C-alpha cells in the first residue's frame, strides 16, 4: 500500500493538471516618431500555458497583427503594410525557460515577428490577487533586426526601437 501511496504523490508532483486559465490578456506596442508617440493594443491574444501548481512552467502566445488597434485606422493599415501581415499574419512567442526569483520571473524564449525568429529574455512581475495571477512585463523590439522597414510620416521614419508591454491574467480553476 505504501509504495502505491508514494507513487501517487510522485506522479501528482510531476504530472499536475493545469490549475489556471487565462481570463484577460493584452499586448501593447509603443512606437515613437519625432512628432508624436502612440500605442496600439491587442486584446485578442491566444495563450496556452502549462502549470506546476502555482508556478508557470511553459507559455505560448499568439497575436494577430490585425488585432492591434491604435485608434487610427490608417495607421493600423500602415502597420499591416510594413509588417506584411497579409502573408505573415501572426506574432508568436513560445517560452523555453521560466525561472522564478521571488515575485520576479525571468522568461526566455523565441519571438517570431515579421517571419523572423529571435531568442529573447525579459523580466516578468507576478501579482497574486483574489484567486488570480497577474503577469506583467515589457521588452524592446528593434524593428530593423526583424527586417521591418520602419514606417514614416511626413518623410521622417519612426524610431527603430518599439516597446512591447503585456499583461496576462490567469484565474484559479
Amino acid at each position, binding site marked *: 500500500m505504501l509504495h502505491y501511496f508514494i507513487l501517487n504523490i510522485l506522479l501528482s508532483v510531476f504530472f499536475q493538471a493545469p490549475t489556471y486559465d487565462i481570463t484577460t490578456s493584452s499586448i501593447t506596442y509603443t512606437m515613437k516618431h519625432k512628432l508624436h508617440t502612440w500605442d496600439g493594443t491587442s486584446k485578442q491574444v491566444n*495563450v496556452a*500555458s502549462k502549470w506546476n501548481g502555482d508556478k508557470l512552467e511553459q507559455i505560448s502566445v*499568439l497575436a494577430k497583427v490585425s488585432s492591434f488597434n491604435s485608434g487610427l*485606422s490608417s495607421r*493600423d493599415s500602415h502597420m499591416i503594410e510594413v509588417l506584411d501581415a497579409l*502573408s505573415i499574419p501572426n506574432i508568436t512567442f513560445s517560452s523555453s525557460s521560466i525561472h522564478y526569483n521571488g515575485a520576479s520571473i525571468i522568461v526566455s524564449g523565441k519571438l517570431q515577428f515579421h517571419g523572423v525568429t529571435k531568442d529573447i529574455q525579459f523580466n516578468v512581475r507576478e501579482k497574486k490577487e483574489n484567486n488570480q495571477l497577474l503577469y506583467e512585463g515589457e521588452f524592446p523590439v528593434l524593428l530593423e533586426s526583424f527586417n521591418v522597414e520602419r514606417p514614416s510620416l511626413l518623410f521622417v521614419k519612426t524610431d527603430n526601437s518599439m516597446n512591447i508591454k503585456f499583461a496576462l491574467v490567469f484565474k484559479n480553476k
Partner: protein
Amino acid sequence: MRKKLIKVYSMIYLVGIFMSANAVKAQTDSLLLQLINSNKVDSSLIQPPAKMLFTQRILWGTNGILKNRYSGNDLVANRQKDLKIRRTMLKLHQIGGFVTLGGMLAQGIIGSQLYKGDYKVKDLHENVGMAVNFSYGFTAINALFSPPSAFQRDKKITSIRLHKWLAVLHLSGMIATNILATQIEHDVSLKPYHRAAAYVSFASLATALIVIKF
C-alpha cells in the same frame, strides 16, 4: 478486499493523472502547432472595407475598374499590391501637399504686391496660380483615388478625420478662389473676396498638414 479497493483506486487515479497530463501536453502542442501552421490571413483584410469614397469605389471597389488586375485570382497578392499602390500614392499626396502649401505661400506674397498696385507681377501671379492649381489637383487625385486602407474602424474624431474635414474646406476655398479670379476682371470689388477665399484655402491646408502629427 481492502487491498483490492486501494489497487482499483490507485489505477483510476493513475489513469486520471495521465489523462490530465496528456491534456496539458495536447494543449501546449496544439498551440505550438497553431503557431507553426496558423498563417491564415484575416479574411477581412483581403477584402477592401465596406466604406470608402465613391472615387475609390470606382477604381478599387468590388466591381472597380482596377480591382484584381494584377495577380489573377490570388486575392492576397492583389490586396498586397493595392496597399503598396496606396502607400506610393499617399507619399505623393504628402509631397504634393507641401509643394502646394509652398506655392500658396509664394502666391500670397505675389498677390499682396499686386494688391498694392504692382501690376508687373500680374502675369507671375497668374502663372503661380496655375502651378498651385496643378499641384493641388495632383495632391487631391493621389488621396481621392488611392486604394482604400485595410481598416475603417475609427469611431472617434481622429486626426485623419479632421484632415478630411479640412480638405472639404480647402477644396471649397480653392474653387471659390479660382471662380472669383476669373470674375475680378469684370468686377474689381470682388478682390477682397478672392483674397479671403485664398487665405481660407491656405490656412485650412496648413492646418490639415499640422493635424496629421497629432
